[in-house]
């Protein structure tokens, strides 16, 4: 813990700010899926690069936590490295790349493939917390729509997609309904990951720094991707297997090689490494 940033409080934010964020989080947990405004602070990382997730992590992290940070499923993408370094030097907590070992996981754009367990906390970085913003940009108006549970706009949008394309034209940030009440943005995770939110044993916290909103899904909460009875939400397999571990069920990255050949590998690098350790290989 020698390189803990001198002159800054544990986890950078002062205790009063953390308290303000925790209060907002408590409200968010009490009203699953509801966006709670909070006094988002200017962080020393750029807006759009995870300032909301960083503030949530800073507010809940303790000395005994074990932190994992991923971006696009990987612990080694530059932004994940940068955020992990930030917390390593402002808290001195242990960091890990292993999903099972982590008590606190901050993520951008993915949910780990390894099923989360009781007691784990997953913090999502959220660029745009308002699931209706493409349909109604005025936040004064969308606040009213959520309050009166008026979700006609988004249902019409889904219907129009089905009528025009025969399928819903949304492949990520696919809206969900939480606990049968609020329509919520799952952040730009692939629709592939949406089912992982449903009845998850982990506490899921969402932070949008620039938009100054927090929201949450408590453990074991009903989370449904929006759909229609005659057009149920479904995940379509990618139809490939990982070049390294051979998995055909995890979400795969598509990488074009210089030889013109396309290779598919697990987006979740910890999942992939774990399978390789267990002896799995590509056939």
């Amino acid at each position, binding site marked *: 813990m020698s390189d803990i940033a001198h002159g800054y409080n544990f986890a950078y934010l*002062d205790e009063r700010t953390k308290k303000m964020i925790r209060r907002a989080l408590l409200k968010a947990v009490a009203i699953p899926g509801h966006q709670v405004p909070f*006094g988002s602070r200017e962080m020393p990382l750029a807006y*759009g*690069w995870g300032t909301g997730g960083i503030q949530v992590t800073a507010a809940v992290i303790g000395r005994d936590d074990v932190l994992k940070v991923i971006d696009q499923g990987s612990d*080694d993408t530059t932004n994940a490295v940068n955020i992990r*370094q930030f917390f390593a030097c402002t808290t001195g907590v242990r960091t890990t790349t292993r999903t099972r070992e982590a008590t606190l996981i901050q993520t*951008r754009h993915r949910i780990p493939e390894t099923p989360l367990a009781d007691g784990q906390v997953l913090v999502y970085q959220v660029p745009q917390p308002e699931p209706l913003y493409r349909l109604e940009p005025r936040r*004064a108006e969308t606040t009213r729509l959520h309050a009166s549970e008026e979700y006609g706009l988004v249902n019409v949008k889904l219907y129009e997609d089905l009528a025009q394309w025969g399928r819903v034209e949304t492949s990520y940030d696919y809206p969900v309904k939480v606990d049968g009440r609020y329509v919520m943005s799952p952040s730009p995770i692939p*629709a592939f990951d949406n089912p992982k939110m449903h009845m998850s044993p982990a506490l899921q916290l969402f932070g949008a720094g*620039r938009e100054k909103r927090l929201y949450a899904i408590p453990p074991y909460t009903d989370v449904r991707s929006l759909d229609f009875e005659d057009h149920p939400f479904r995940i379509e397999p990618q139809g490939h297997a990982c070049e390294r571990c051979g998995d055909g069920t995890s979400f795969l990255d598509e990488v074009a090689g210089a030889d013109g050949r396309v290779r598919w590998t697990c987006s979740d690098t910890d999942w992939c490494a774990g399978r390789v350790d267990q002896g799995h290989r590509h056939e």
Partner: protein
Amino acid sequence: MYIAVKGGERAIDASRRLLAAARRGDAALPELAAAQIEQQMGLLVGRVMAEASLYDPPLAALALRQAYGDAIEATFLLRAYRTTLPRFAYSEPVDTDRMRVDRRVCAIFKDLPGGQLLGPTFDYTQRLLDFATQAGEPPVVDDAAGADVEAVPNALSQLAREGLVEPCEPSDGDPEPPDITRDPPAYPLPRTGWLQMLARADEGWVLGMGYSTQRGYAHTHPFAGDLRSGRVVVELVPDELDFAIEIGEVELTECQMINQFVGSAEVAPVFTRGQGLVFGRGERKAIAMSLVDRALRAAEFGEEASSPAQQQEFALPQGDSVEASGFVQHLKLPHYVTFESELQLIRKLRADVHARAADVARQGDAG
């Protein structure tokens, strides 16, 4: 297998070193002192302080040097530092009528109490690049400098006394202003909230929004009533005392624009005001801000709000340079996962289209 999954950490380290070297430039030349920036790039220092909402010229100069001369990056550095500062107290409102002005112009009267004071301005320079100064500038002879002028009455006061211009005093029961750096915005914001947002908005954005009101996107019929720059004392009332004490002074630029208003069923015709107030000598921004302020008051005067500058949710949040810069530039972060999802979708949509076309062709053949 050559797909890179490690190396992010080393790449970041190397990038930081490259930035430090690029920023320093040719090591044969002397390093720029932050004090030189503060003294010789005062307008830039003022702009950074205004957009950072932090009045601290030495730190703004330091930020500019560290930011490689980028104004938004320097603003970002200063704001991130500002967040960590404790709040001791809120100051009393500054009184710009008591400003020690070194510039005050009024476009609506030829002469007036306090006079017209040109001060240091580019307005009547001829924009000829001075090649003779390439080798160095001769010493400046400051024979035009006069002492700061004490309290100059606002050019609009007389008109306000006659009732021709709306007064500018807080009305009874005026709520405490929100603190936009602590309270999340809830639209519609009160005027005290939007003025704060405009004061720290990106200068280019405010300039463009103000300009739009002059080109037919909202009409405000503006006249520059009182435009002034100078130093103003900042006072606060400590908990232990029941009177205000001076804690320092700040350099400010203020523009009070007056605008035609023909009246409505309830209100007699009266000139209305738009206000611009910024740290430093950001005169261009203060003028533009006063135009946008007046445009945003559309609802108050029952004016149709059909233009961007009249719509809070358009004119305000998009103008924050640090928020906008971060989010626009986050597009260079990896989006492999979302893009892969889109690739899958577009392949399926294309397959659907081709399948339908093939069906149609088959039916055509059959018929």
